[in-house]
């Protein structure tokens, strides 16, 4: 089983290198999908071996280690990765034409990005976890700026400055945790050792360290008030990258918070991190609610919806306990798949319309049902309609919170969720229904407000439908299947002490 720990990292590296070498166009085109599929397969394999009481696969003295939570996250990265990269495949070009340098770089960076996220969830060493999270910033910086327009460069700049400064704060926290371990007699960054409760860690030092680490990783997870880079980066990146960033990268940063939270709970009790997460979570919901209501750009709207869902995850983690944590993990999976599908479809709508303004996309259901129906289904999943997984996870988080005595927070969260629901539903209705006005029909293919950097490309507005259908189908049944998904979630939640 330990072999499965190395395979995803090696596969991502090899495929990334293969994409920059003068290989065929097919390799460049499919490398991201292949890397995601391998990550998914390894994640499922590790999940199968992660039985209670079983031996945790461990390699290189804790450098790589996969308990049930790591295996779940790895499988989730793979599943969302397949959705985003396969769904986002560009239309096949002429196989005789060699891929351009930009295409090669893009493919290689997607592989590096997937590899870095896999490393982040597979390592037991908090320092390596930090290095991997920072590496995702590096890989995605170029992906956000891929289009090279003024807006995408601006988004990339804000993203790199805020992202790397935020994550640097987390490094300070990690360094201080190491100092705490060293003063307690064992110089280690191993999460398993630090969270075992066997080291007499100094509470004052751990308090500072955990506060900084949670703050830093929360920046990367897009929690308010450190969210301001997120809508820019997620709306300017190419569609598959937006899907990966919203669907999994945020969740990986959130995973880091979960790990740090365990150490804090063991040494200090739950108060500190619970307070930080509640403030961040409710703040994120409030920010998202305020900005979704008057949002006129559908890609930015999806980005704000990501802030909303990260806020819900933070609230769930603040509640704690087996039910809430299992619900948080189900929410991560459901949100990842639904959001990746939506960003891929949004990318196709952008290619068909040449504009990201909601007002420029009218009557999509009548004109392009091939785009409107998946968008509607994805939005239904995101808004938490049953039978989609997000319905069950949201209900479980709220109920668990109520039972944990956080009724006021849950009431506030429900109110904000209602506002968000209204905002998202209104914009979606406007895009899908809204009578195709006569002037719009006349100028079809040449919308009035099309920005110059978004050319209409009808070929790119058609793409594989299978990954979207698969992703939404998994989201639809995930909440209903006690076996295997329910069991997996409970085991993964147990890995972080629930």
């Amino acid at each position, binding site marked *: 089983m330990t072999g499965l720990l190395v395979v995803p990292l090696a596969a991502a590296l090899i495929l990334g290198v293969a994409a920059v070498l003068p290989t065929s166009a097919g390799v460049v085109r499919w490398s991201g999908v292949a890397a995601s599929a391998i990550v998914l397969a390894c994640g499922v394999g590790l999940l199968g071996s992660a039985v209670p009481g079983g031996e945790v696969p461990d390699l290189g003295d804790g450098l790589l280690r996969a308990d049930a939570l790591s295996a779940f996250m790895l499988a989730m990265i793979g599943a969302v990765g397949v959705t985003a990269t396969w769904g986002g495949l560009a239309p096949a070009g002429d196989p005789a034409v060699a891929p351009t340098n930009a295409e090669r770089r893009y493919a290689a960076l997607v592989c590096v990005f997937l590899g870095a996220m896999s490393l982040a969830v597979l390592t037991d060493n908090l320092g390596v976890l930090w290095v991997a999270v920072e590496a995702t910033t590096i890989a995605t910086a170029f992906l956000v700026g891929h289009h090279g327009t003024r807006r995408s460069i601006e988004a990339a*700049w804000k993203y790199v400055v805020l992202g790397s400064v935020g994550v640097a704060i987390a490094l300070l926290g990690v360094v201080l945790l190491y100092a705490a371990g060293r003063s307690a007699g064992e110089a280690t960054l191993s999460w398993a050792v630090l969270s075992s409760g066997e080291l007499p860690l100094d509470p004052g030092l751990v308090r500072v360290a955990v506060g900084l680490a949670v703050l830093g990783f929360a920046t990367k997870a897009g929690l308010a008030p450190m969210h301001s880079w997120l809508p820019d980066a997620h709306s300017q990146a190419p569609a598959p990258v937006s899907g990966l960033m919203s669907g999994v990268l945020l969740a990986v940063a959130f995973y880091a918070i979960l790990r740090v939270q365990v150490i804090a709970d063991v040494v200090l009790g739950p108060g500190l991190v619970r307070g930080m997460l509640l403030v961040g979570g409710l703040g994120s919901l409030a920010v998202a609610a305020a900005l979704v209501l008057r949002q006129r750009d559908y890609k930015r709207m999806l980005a704000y919806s990501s802030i909303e869902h990260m806020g819900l995850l933070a609230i769930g983690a603040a509640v704690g306990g087996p039910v809430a944590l299992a619900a948080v993990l189900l929410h991560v999976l459901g949100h990842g798949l639904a959001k990746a599908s939506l960003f891929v479809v949004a990318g196709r709508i952008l290619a068909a319309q040449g504009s990201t303004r909601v007002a420029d996309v009218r009557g999509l259901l009548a004109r392009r049902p091939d785009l409107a129906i998946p968008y509607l289904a994805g939005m239904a999943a995101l808004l938490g309609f049953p039978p989609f997984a997000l319905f069950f996870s949201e209900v479980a988080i709220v109920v668990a919170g109520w039972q944990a005595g956080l009724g006021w927070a849950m009431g506030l969260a429900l109110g904000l969720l209602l506002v968000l629901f209204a905002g998202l539903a209104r914009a979606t209705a406007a895009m899908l229904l809204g009578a195709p006005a006569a002037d719009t029909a006349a100028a079809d293919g040449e919308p009035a407000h099309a920005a110059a950097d978004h050319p209409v490309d009808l070929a790119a507005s058609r793409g594989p439908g299978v990954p979207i259908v698969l992703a939404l189908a998994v989201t639809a049944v995930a909440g209903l299947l006690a076996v295997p998904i329910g069991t997996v979630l409970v085991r993964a939640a147990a890995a972080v002490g629930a």
Partner: protein
Amino acid sequence: MTLLQSAATQLLALSTGTLLVTAVLLVWRRSLGAAWRLLAVQGVALAALVLAIAVAEEDVELLGVAAIILVLKGVVLPLVLARGIAGTGVAREDAPLLNPTAGLVTVAGLTTVAYLVSRPITEGVGGAGGGQAGPAALSVPVGISMVLIGFLLLVTRRRALSQVVGFLVLDNGIATVGFLTAAGVPFVVELGVSFDVLLIALILAMLSGRMHAAVGATSVDEMTELRD
């Protein structure tokens, strides 16, 4: 205490002093040409600090770390910055939000704050009351001051490359805290962190060059296309 040990303690005091002074000078000076030279001095001082700790702890591995830091933070990163400055042709920070006097007063305040917030760290490392804290643990406020000064540079400077300077000071501060409290993180992690910081600096320098080429602007205030 051997002669070598006392020399190490003096080197530690000298290098931490240099680190703090360079950080303060970076707030005072507006010229970007001075900024990259000061960063080079700061990098060398950090390497000297690691050397002092290596001698005090009798740790051979740390000597290697000191060499890496000397090359990376003393030479490579300042050169990346210098190339970026030459590429954009902007030599001065001409619109900071704080004038030099206000900047220096703020720095004095931040340093005081650093001493206050460092107490739990010093006590945690050196035992309650800081009674058994060595000279290294007692110097932790210097690292925290550098982190805070890095933040100050990031939020008050408007030129893209000046913000890179702020980020690098912030990172030097974190490294300083790491070395003073725990003699640095494990070697593998140190390598990974150094590599990441190098790449981030390269990306930021490249992006500011592209920004300059695309819109002729190197002030972050002119980036207002994306907002709600």
